[in-house]
């Protein structure tokens, strides 16, 4: 089993509902976020292009954050989800420095926090809160090993990319183009 997410950049409008839903679902303190919106503008007026993306932890197969963690607080659980155990985290921030996606932050309570793919929901068979709420249904989640999962279906016959492939992290958030 390998959890992954695909996000259709042709449909995402960058409304940040995923951000708000994550905050209410996971009690992320206001002012912090486990997911966020990136807007990439290219070209010169009037020949402009815009890509809007909802970004978060890439739950990498080769996660530098887990390697960087001196206490073992950062770890990988079933399905490839990268997690942090707050009780084991000393808040040193080595993982924050090592992440090429800037996906981690220091929680005001003294530990490092990040996206968990809402594994408490996934265990119950639900989609992560961001996926479940998205008004444009631009996000797809599921088991990449299951060809009939939402994420596998979404990636069929579509061009896609991952972020910073050169970092060699083997990220598992895919952007449909």
């Amino acid at each position, binding site marked *: 089993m390998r959890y992954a997410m695909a996000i259709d950049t*042709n449909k995402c409008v960058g409304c940040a*509902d995923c951000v708000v839903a994550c905050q209410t679902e996971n*009690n992320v303190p206001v002012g912090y976020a486990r997911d966020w919106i990136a807007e990439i*503008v290219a070209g010169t007026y009037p020949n402009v292009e815009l890509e809007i993306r909802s970004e978060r932890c890439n739950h990498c197969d080769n996660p530098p954050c887990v390697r960087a963690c001196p206490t073992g607080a950062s770890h990988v659980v079933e399905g490839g989800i990268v997690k942090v155990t707050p009780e084991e985290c000393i808040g040193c921030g080595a993982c924050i420095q090592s992440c090429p996606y800037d996906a981690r932050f220091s929680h005001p309570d003294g530990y490092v926090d990040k996206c968990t793919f809402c594994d*408490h929901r996934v265990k119950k068979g639900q989609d992560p809160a961001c996926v479940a709420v998205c008004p444009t249904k631009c996000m797809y989640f599921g088991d990449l090993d299951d060809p009939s999962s939402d994420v596998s279906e979404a990636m069929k016959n579509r061009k896609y990319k991952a972020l910073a492939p050169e970092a060699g992290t083997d990220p598992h958030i895919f952007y449909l183009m």
Partner: protein
Amino acid sequence: MKTRRDFIKISALGAGGLAAAGGAYKWAKGSEIMDKLSGEAADKNLKLNRYPTYCEVCFWKCAGWTHTDDSGNIIKIIGNDDDPHSNGRMCPRGTGGIGMYYDEDRLKTPLIRTTKNGKQTFRKASWDEALEVVAKNFNKIKQKYGPEAVAGFFHGSPGSHLGHTLHAFGSHTEAHPSYAQCRGPREVGFAATFGSGVGSPEPTDIRDTKCMVLIGSHIGENMHNGQVQEMADAIDKGASIITVDPRFSTAASKSKFWLPIKPSTDIALLMAWIHVIINDELYDKKYVEQYAYGFKELKEHVKKMTPEWAYGITTIEPSLIRKTAYEMAAASPAAIIHPGRHATWYGDDTQRERAIAILNALLGTWGRRGGFYFKEAMSLPKYPTPEPPKPKWDWKDIHGDKYPLAALPVSNALVEATIAENKPKHQIRSWLVAGTNLPLTLPNKEQTLKAIQELEFMVVVDTMPMEVTGYADVVLPECTYLERYDYIRTSPHREPNIALRMPATNPKYESKPAWWIAKKLGEKLGLEKYFPWKDIEEVLDWQLYQVGSSLEEMQKVGVKKFERAYGAPYLKQGEDYEFYTNSGKIELYSTEMENAGFDPMPSFTQHEEPPKDFYRLIYGRTPAHTFSRTANNPNLVDLKAEPLLWINPKVASIWGIKNEQYIWLKNQDDKITQFPVKVRVTERIRWDSVFMPHGFGHSNKRLSRAYGKGASDAELITNVNVDPVMGGTGMRANFVTFLTEEPKTETRS
């Protein structure tokens, strides 16, 4: 200047224990409860209860479920799967609506204006005392000038309750800024053409469209949920989008064609499209022949309005105008030239909306799948109450000969009729304001404040200490939509449906639902007979019973759908159909406009151009905010940490302005923003315009998160071009220049 009505910052009130929250804002009181949600260990202990609601963060009114834990704390809001407005998915504002409830800056108790040591201030009051004061003053006005001199300004749900009190009192002097400051022109323009306005939600059949044309409408940034969802569905199905906007909007980035038009020239583009569609015989001949009136006149009218003519006006290449005309024609009748929503731009907005309607008519999109469906709403009978007294005059008398096609009262006309200097035939002496922050909602803030100074008495009902509350004599704290019942939502859709809003928890502080305020105020005014119910539950249950439902059923389902009673949502092939116009046909040539003394067919008129070193101020939405209502919402405020002013890089380089620099804006009338705004240098905006989101730059310190964040576009909108057809306030002919140094305070607005 000494005024009889000083602005009172509600913060000045010793409300006690209000230390400003510094640093990171944590989940108000809900923090511990929210903790339960995050860890899986706690998760199993959590018992969720859910209560149906429909959202009041914007006026799309998505139905959803408010979830509470077993201590009654609100923890999240999720869409109702059966609701055609939300389809089970709230937008960011709906999801973050919970912040309205937890916002610690909320109005907490009734407040009464008083003078202490020569200084005006508010003092806390009981509901009984506050309502007594309101009733006493309303009755005083009634004796002196008649009940009609008390005017209501309403937005959203509270208006339906307080409007009832106002009518019972004997006044029909009531306006909603959502008409003359927003969608009025499109209602009039479409009604003049099709005999039916657009309404909300718009009956645009986006999910099945093959081509959608957006003119200045920024769906995606304007998060009217159902429309955004259907636009995403349409993109999935390969529909093409054509966006006309001086700004490379989110929608433009999803479009096959983006027409970066010169602002204020939209009518020229529309007329050129009409020209191509008629000239190249791309129109729906059968449809036009069967349903339309005035084709010959229109053909003659647009004869010279060629794409080449429009090029010089709009800066859009003739070939692109032709190509896009062919694109929409190829998709027709599954095409939508979207009427937009906020349509008050240049003062000839009804005519622009007419042009949009005409284009739709030529392509045969009205009443067609993938175009516009025939909407249908469930009508709930009104709970029987005695006939209210007939006012001696009402808003129509205030309009007089002006705005002949205004179907609803024009708020700016009511403001003008409050100012003695304007010598109104009937002067308004008192305002009852609910759910609308007038100084930021209406253009020309100075005029609004001038009118307020002339009032003998002003009451404001709101959930938040919005700027307007600072001018009130009595402030009444309404509870949020999550803590109250309101009337049943009956908005039209493909299928008639109703939705219930009920409280998920008790009102915080001493706030009260508007239905309660309306009834109690009615009783204080001696109008008991107009409120023959114990509470709103009785009213709702009675109403629901009339359509075969009940309050109990609605509490369980939240949304209920009904069969259509008035025919199919689309025209059948060759169906005989009578439109509610003078001719019974779709009027390409409008007899209604002609009879009212206006051009029966739209033409382009030249509008003001920016003076040297000035740029046209374009304002709009960001997805997580609704006007100024959300600017202090703890869940939404940190998303777009600050509203940004978009400037084209070429312009920025001329001025030496850097990205993220703070600047002040000065408009053509020397009005300078109170606060600076952060610059976003971006290729997404034309060089002759700047863009900023509307609803920021709050000046009331009591809005602790919103205060001083960004500049207020309302401050800069001093040039208002009023639409003579229906009174809409055209607000896009304002121009700004940049001040990179902080201006001296005495020159500031």
